[in-house]
């Protein structure tokens, strides 16, 4: 912004941007440290170039491993997990639409049998995407839904089975055990399937997201992250801490409530958005 000199004030401003973007204090200090070193090493003179360097550092942390959905060879099963209200069901609708338009056959499993009208909500998304849905009564065992859905996927020769699950806070032991049970069923009933297991994180979430990843990882064989609600003013910077600690790629982002509001994650765009004022 107003800075013309590379001084302490500039670094403090950068620290503020990172922290208010939910990057977290420790990761912020690490990044600013790295920035100081690089500025020295590369003899950077211009404030503008400092900012570019900063973006590169962020990009570097976030890039690396492959962030494409792995749904080949078919059949594939995609399981969506996460805490309450982050955007699991909505993301499933969006993904179903995308896969279908790529010519894949898709089946949805309404694995949230707990929350009021969860299956009805997913059913609306199934209709919008033009795919089929397997559901049970509210209150029934979610593992049984997944079991049925796997049989259904086999019978239909479905390319991708996408399973919704109920929102659960990671500190609820019984709910996490229920999740582990779902994965045991999948391993037993569908060993031939390619597995993707995505944890949905709401970009408005603060440092708690780090715990979410840690603990969900214990119950579910996570393969990646969907970062939702990036259309708001929250930056989702906590994924930087997650990425440096947990090595879990961000695969998709949610940028709205409509069926087309799903994008591939792009580290460069993310870094740019982190440093743009809204």
């Amino acid at each position, binding site marked *: 912004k107003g800075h013309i000199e590379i001084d302490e004030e500039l670094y403090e401003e950068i620290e*503020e941007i990172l*922290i*208010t*973007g*939910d990057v*977290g*204090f*420790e990761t912020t200090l690490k990044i600013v440290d790295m920035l100081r070193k690089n500025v020295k090493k590369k003899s950077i003179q211009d404030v503008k170039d400092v900012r570019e360097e900063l973006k590169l550092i962020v990009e570097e942390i976030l890039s690396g491993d492959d962030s494409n959905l792995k749904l080949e060879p078919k059949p594939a099963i995609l399981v969506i997990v996460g*805490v*309450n*209200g*982050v*955007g699991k069901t909505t993301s499933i*609708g969006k993904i179903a639409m995308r896969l279908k338009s790529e010519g894949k056959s898709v089946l949805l499993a309404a694995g949230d049998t*707990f*929350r*009021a*009208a*969860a299956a*009805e*909500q997913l*059913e*609306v*998304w199934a209709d919008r995407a033009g795919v089929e849905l397997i559901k049970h009564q509210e209150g029934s065992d979610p593992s049984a839904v997944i079991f049925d859905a796997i049989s259904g996927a086999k019978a239909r020769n479905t390319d991708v089975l996408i399973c919704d699950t109920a929102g659960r*806070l*990671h*500190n*609820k032991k019984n709910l996490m055990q229920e999740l582990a049970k779902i994965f045991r069923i999948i391993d037993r009933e569908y060993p031939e399937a390619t597995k993707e297991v995505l944890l949905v994180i*709401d970009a*408005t*979430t*603060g*440092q*708690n*997201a780090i*715990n979410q990843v840690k603990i969900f990882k214990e119950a579910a064989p996570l393969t990646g992250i969907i970062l939702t*609600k990036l*259309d*708001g*003013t*929250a*930056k989702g910077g*906590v994924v930087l801490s997650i990425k440096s600690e947990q090595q879990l790629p961000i695969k998709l982002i949610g940028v709205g*409530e409509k069926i087309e509001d799903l994008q591939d994650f792009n580290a460069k765009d993310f870094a740019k958005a982190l440093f743009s004022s*809204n």
Partner: protein
Amino acid sequence: MIFENLAEKLQSTLKNLKGKGKLTEKDVDLAMREVKLALLEADVHYKVVKDFIKKVKERSIGSEVMESLTPGQQVIKIVNEELSELMGGVQSKINISSKPPTVIMLVGLQGAGKTSTAGKLALNLKKQGKQPMLVACDVYRPAAIKQLEIVASGAGAIFYSEEGNTNPVEIATKGYEKAKTLGYDIVIIDTAGRLHIDENLMDELKNIKSSIKPHEIMLVVDSMTGQDAVNIAESFDQTLGIDGVILTKLDGDTRGGAALSIKAITKKPIKYAAVGEKLEDLEQFYPDRMASRILGM
């Protein structure tokens, strides 16, 4: 539990100060760095933390403290006082109008917990002998109306919706008129989740507000929210005007700094805490008790 980790962190930091017979400015600086870390890790807003640290430092390095017999304890006392100040005040109740129906409108970001909280509030008020009516004004989210209907029936509340009507302002108005005619005590308006920067949808809320003049506009906030909590609360308050905050998902392990920040910046009271997914899981919020819990007092 909320604030547990923050409390632990702060207390262990401050413990180091306690025994010190003499304090240097450097001791204070070091301790404040730890306090800052604890607060930021708990998602307290950057600006709130900065102001807080500044205030505590200013008060701490004054000669009265430094030259006292127990400077460490003095600093701890200052931290306690300033934190209590942040959490602010005593419990504030929901305004029940002397002329029924009392109208409560729930607003907030997507997925914050409005619809479930509507049910919890209804049950809570029902237990106090009131007859609440839930009005379904979320015409956007798939199956939102059905969700509220299920929740209303669980709470034993009257449910109002309008099949096919996509105008939330109309639905709110007619629901309110009906409650008035039939003599229900409480009207709870469930609105669709929206971003605070979505002008069209914020206008819609303003229109509902001017049509039915709610007694309580409650911002429902997910307690896991990070630094953006302040922007969200400020925007809703500036564009719509809020009377209070309901914090949800306090049954998680969040450190809950968003609560501190919202209170500090908007000065609006946190009135309820949602602590689970069941209809019974709603509690009154006691800020003074919360502050004590953070500080382990």
